[in-house]
């Protein structure tokens, strides 16, 4: 009996025993075709999904390698059905190809006539393709390139896109590595993208995704359209690009709610792109405003659905997606695969943490108990009011104060959802509050002050969650938040994960009301964080020096 580190489960999950001497070797072998799903301390769970297998195919791995890895590292016999399934799934990728034909233009070709016949019989494909040229080839209108890929993926026959890209309008962009240099993994990521043509780079928060974007732009040296989540993020991209590349302020335009600049490098927000008036997207022409050579999608996992539809028309342009996770709350991972491209680079958080690129974080859940009156009121509250009620209990304010006192000489972020609560906290902690209505200028001033350590405590609402850069936040305290979504956790953790000058560990507190729906959400959070491999503790409010009125 072999004593490999891997156990293959019948639901196509792979359990990797991390303390096993061959674990590292095994991880390398299975990472290309299995998505890391959970990484708690002893046994990591990978999942083999069709998309993961196709990603592996796109990266040049074949079924033989996958089967060898499974058999070679598995502790127990691998069920044959699973191996067959792997081989069959992988064989589906690339049977169909999108290619550029010298005479017929964009064509869908097949090395397997039966497959082509099968997909062409589909009612969904018929309207997307044109004239048939021979038995193995059918014309595709260039504007349907994305739709065809999307539909083929849904039919289970993902097409390999070999039709190439337009170069776009040339524009010189160089990285200026003065006083900093690309980290090895950033270079690998940018190179992997460039060789793959289009695709997604997966890097944890704080690992410098913007720089990977900049490196990709330097590769392309062409006009670039960057799509980001919000205005603050747009500013930061601009700052970062000016700092890291040869681009000057005049060459970078912002296309946001307030400014509508179109320049060789244009940064637009998803929000403005998806604004509709009278049922039509008013800013669609931006995509055609210039002959873009590269499109950068920041935070691909948040890409809104209309952008997918627009992206379907951009298939001739190179696209790079940047994200911390391929998991989408809406389950549209397949659209990312077919429209942006396959995964081109992936680095495990833990490994980067060990290499010192991101700071280790400790997660602590602090449980407060509601007072008797509060419990009664909570029990009687309407179900849609319950979360708000329990997550804004005054007890949380007291605990937060105690935590801030505990970390008296560190930069502390307090994150919450409800404005009243945030205002109250700001008052108690004597700290500025950033919320939706705070003007961008003021926001940036406060962030800068926080960075400069002029302000020690900052209270922020949801708006601060995405794509901002707070390098010195060593402690984050979450008092309330939207229903434990996985992305949000990743974001929040990203806040405190930034490498710190002193190398100290970051702390992430979440304050939770015991025996309420708040605690249920916390359970999701606990699971997510523990699965990501973070140390997680649960303590009671009295343990932080707060007197619990309930006791």
């Amino acid at each position, binding site marked *: 009996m072999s004593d490999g580190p891997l156990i293959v489960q019948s*639901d196509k999950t792979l*359990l990797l*025993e991390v303390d096993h001497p061959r674990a590292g070797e095994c991880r390398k072998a299975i990472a290309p075709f299995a998505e890391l799903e*959970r990484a708690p301390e002893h046994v990591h769970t990978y999942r083999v999904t069709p998309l993961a297998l196709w990603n592996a195919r796109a990266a040049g791995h074949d079924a033989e390698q996958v089967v060898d890895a499974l*058999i070679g590292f598995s502790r*127990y016999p691998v069920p044959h059905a699973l191996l067959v399934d792997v081989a069959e799934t992988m064989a589906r990728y690339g049977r169909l190809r999108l290619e550029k034909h010298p005479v017929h233009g964009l064509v869908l070709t097949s090395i397997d006539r039966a497959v082509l016949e099968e997909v062409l019989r589909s009612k969904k494909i018929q309207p997307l393709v044109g004239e048939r040229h021979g038995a193995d080839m059918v014309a595709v209108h260039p504007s349907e390139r994305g739709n065809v890929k999307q539909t083929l993926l849904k039919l289970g026959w993902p097409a390999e896109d070999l039709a190439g890209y337009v170069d776009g309008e040339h524009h010189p962009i160089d990285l200026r590595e003065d006083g900093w240099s690309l980290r090895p993994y950033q270079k690998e990521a940018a190179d992997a993208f460039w060789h793959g043509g289009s695709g997604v780079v997966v890097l944890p928060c704080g690992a410098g995704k913007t720089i990977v974007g900049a490196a990709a732009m330097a590769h392309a040296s062409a006009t670039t359209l960057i799509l980001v989540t919000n205005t603050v993020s747009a500013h930061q991209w601009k700052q970062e690009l000016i700092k890291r590349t040869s681009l000057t302020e005049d060459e970078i335009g912002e296309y946001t709610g307030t400014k509508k600049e179109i320049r060789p490098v244009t940064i637009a927000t998803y929000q403005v792109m998806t604004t509709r008036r009278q049922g039509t997207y008013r800013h669609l022409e931006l995509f055609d405003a210039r002959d873009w050579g590269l499109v950068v999608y920041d935070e691909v996992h948040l890409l809104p659905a209309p952008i997918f539809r627009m992206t379907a028309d951009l298939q001739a342009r190179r696209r790079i997606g940047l994200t911390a996770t391929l998991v989408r709350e809406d389950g549209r991972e397949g659209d990312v695969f077919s429209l942006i491209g396959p995964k081109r680079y992936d680095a495990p958080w833990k490994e980067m943490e060990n290499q010192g690129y991101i700071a280790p974080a400790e997660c602590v859940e602090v449980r407060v108990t509601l007072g008797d009156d509060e419990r009664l009121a909570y029990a009687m509250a309407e179900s849609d009011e319950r979360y708000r009620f329990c997550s804004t209990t005054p007890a949380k304010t007291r605990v937060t104060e105690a935590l801030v006192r505990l970390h008296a000489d560190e930069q502390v972020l307090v994150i919450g959802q409800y404005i009243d609560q945030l205002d109250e906290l700001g008052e108690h902690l004597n700290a500025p509050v950033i919320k939706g209505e705070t003007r961008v200028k003021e926001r940036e001033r406060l962030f800068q002050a926080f960075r400069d350590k002029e302000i020690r405590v900052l209270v922020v609402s949801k708006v601060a969650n995405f794509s901002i850069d707070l390098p010195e936040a060593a402690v984050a305290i979450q008092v309330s938040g939207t229903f434990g979504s996985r992305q949000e956790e990743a974001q929040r953790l990203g806040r405190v994960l930034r490498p710190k000058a002193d190398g100290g560990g970051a702390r992430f507190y979440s304050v939770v009301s015991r025996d309420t729906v708040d605690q249920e959400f916390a359970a999701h959070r606990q699971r997510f964080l523990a699965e990501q491999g973070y140390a997680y503790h649960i303590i009671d409010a009295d343990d932080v020096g707060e007197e619990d009125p309930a006791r």
Partner: protein
Amino acid sequence: MERMTGTDFSEWLRGRSDERLRALVAARPELVTPVPAHIDGLAARACSPSAIGRALDRLDRFSLAVLETLALRPGAAGRETLSSLLRRAVPGDRDDETLGRALDAALDVLTTRALVYGPGDALLPAPGVTDALEPPAALGPPAAEVFRHHSPERLDVLLRDIDPAGEGGSGGEQPDGGRPAGERLAALLADPATVARLVGEVSPQARAALDELVWGPSSGRLPNARREVDAASAHSPIEQLLARGLLGATGEETVALPREVALVLRDGRVHRDLSPGPPALEGPVRDQDLADRTAAGQAFTFVRTVEDLCEVWSVDPPGVLRAGGLAVRDLRRTAQLLDLPEWAAGLVVEVAHAAGLVAAGEGEWLPTGGYDGWRIKATEDRWAVLAVAWAAMERAPGLIGERDDRDRPLNALHPDLRRPGAAQMRARMLAVLESAPPGLAPTPESVLARLAWEQPRRRPALRDRLVRFALREAEHIGVTGLGVPATHGRAVARGDGTAAGLLAPLLPEPVDHVLLQADLTAVAPGPLTTDLGRRLALTADVESKGGATVYRFSEQSVRRALDAGHSADDLLAVLERHSATPVPQPLRYLVADVARRHGRIRVGTASAYIRCDDPALLDEVLADKRAHLLRLRRLAPTVLASKTSRAALVDSLRAMGYAPVAESLEGDVVVARADARRTEGQLAARVTASNAPDPEVIDAAVRAMRAGDSRRRPVEAPEGQVPRSPATATISALQEAIRQGSRVWIGYLDSQGHATSRILEPARMEGGYLTAYDETRATVHRFALHRITGIAEIGR
């Protein structure tokens, strides 16, 4: 010629030793059902077309070719003659020794089965064999047959064209010693020189057409086949052939190549590309160990899947269709639950049924009591039960989802899936797999080719499809791995009961520890020991199964364990003892937190309650001695709970002199979960290794025939009636007689109800019948046990 040797055949058969006769009966059991009265009867039966047909069906391609070669030769032939004829049919430089050995083996088989008889240097096909072989080796009918219906004038024309120099020509007259034209034609066509000359005369196209027909099929369609043509008027290539008798019209629209011509054109060979041995299995070669492990992995998965199926069906059984079987919808749902494609789910369901683990009961498909016994066995034993049941299944699960002749869907578990012969086919396929060299993954095509070689004449309906199904099933069950017959799979093929033992070391060994993690999961890196497995199943929910099991702790699961009477300390102690790693803090916290809230609210059962605003009155009731029987308990000053029903309580209180009023049951809900259900189900079909008759029966049959043959006078039954004896004594006396091989004297009521008296030599007893050699009738007979009125010993 052969027909005249019917008595020769009888005599030859009579001359065989008893041992050879027993071998004959064992190989052709249909010859002794019922047992013939004497050897002549046996010979007659052995020559009957149906019996010969069945015997031919069992021959492999080479033996059949030997028989065909012999049958095509006029008169008897020796081994050497056959050998030289066959050698020409074997392509390549095959060494004579191989061919000789194969020929000897084939001749042994053929004589043992009485398909060929006679001394070694003058072998003849048994009477009837030549007819049964028709047409042999894909040859056309003999010339005499082909030209039988040609008019004399037409034959004359033909003869003139074939043999212009010959004396032929004048119709009606027979210058050649009075031989009819047909015979002369046949003789001419059997002459190689003539045929060569005729073939030389026709056009190349005509020769090509001839080549097509030589190795069969030997006939073709041709409009207006009976056209009048002669060598001079022939235009088309076919007409050139017709004009020379190289083709003959056998019907209005069919022509055939006369056998004699074909044999000449085959250049003295009867067969083309004859192989003395079976075709080799082909396919990729893999590591046998790896294949074993893979098959074992699949076997483990299959057993678990069957268990999952039974567990699901015990709480949520699907209905039995009115026509029997499982609805398409239910199968689809089951497939989803088991995460399998539908064909595989169909297989799981069918095998579970064949193994007697599920059956129809009360209109639903339910696990049987047998399932409970199966479940507690070791994994390898459970697998062996399933694999054996699969091998013996007379059903074709691969057909599920297809449509029958009347375009109705074939449902899983439906009687229509029965395919007689399926089990035999599977057994033959397994035997082929068993013979594969280690590591070879035979391709389906080579398995089919081997099966076709072994029984060329038998092509049961769907054979090829059934074999392909069976190969796929073998892989799914874990009989093969990576296409290679696994060591334990070969044991299933042999049916020697060693499968479980061979499988066991390949399966994951039970472990007694788990890995606890901060995300509240426990990973058992292998199957758990029973005790720990039960504890964990109670405390945590299973999240993923396979080689390992992943459990997840949640508030609900911990509460379930607490409800089952474990304390928080208990739980943590068990986890600490069995965890290879420290218990994570969040898990401790979870257990403590659930325990903190556990049991704060208490719930009990009471059948009825007594409510009264005046506590003093309740004091009075409680104090009443007669109230003891009511088992009252005070829950609050103004409330009493009782274990008796409301009606009884009201009656009792009335009897005690109070005036109670019954309250309605508003809001009172009784939730009862249906228990896991079981059905009786019929016993799984008993697996018999083969359907060959018992040696004792064969023995008895041969003795009977010999007895009948030697005209041995039936033994006189002793005078008087056999004393009546009780049934139990009869049976035990018969068993004793079978064991000792002794004779007994019985009284027997024949079918007319007449009391008769017999001397028997009992051979076998089963299913309420006794098979015995009846000395009073000199025959083997089956006796209904209930008609045996008495039994007595008889001196030898």
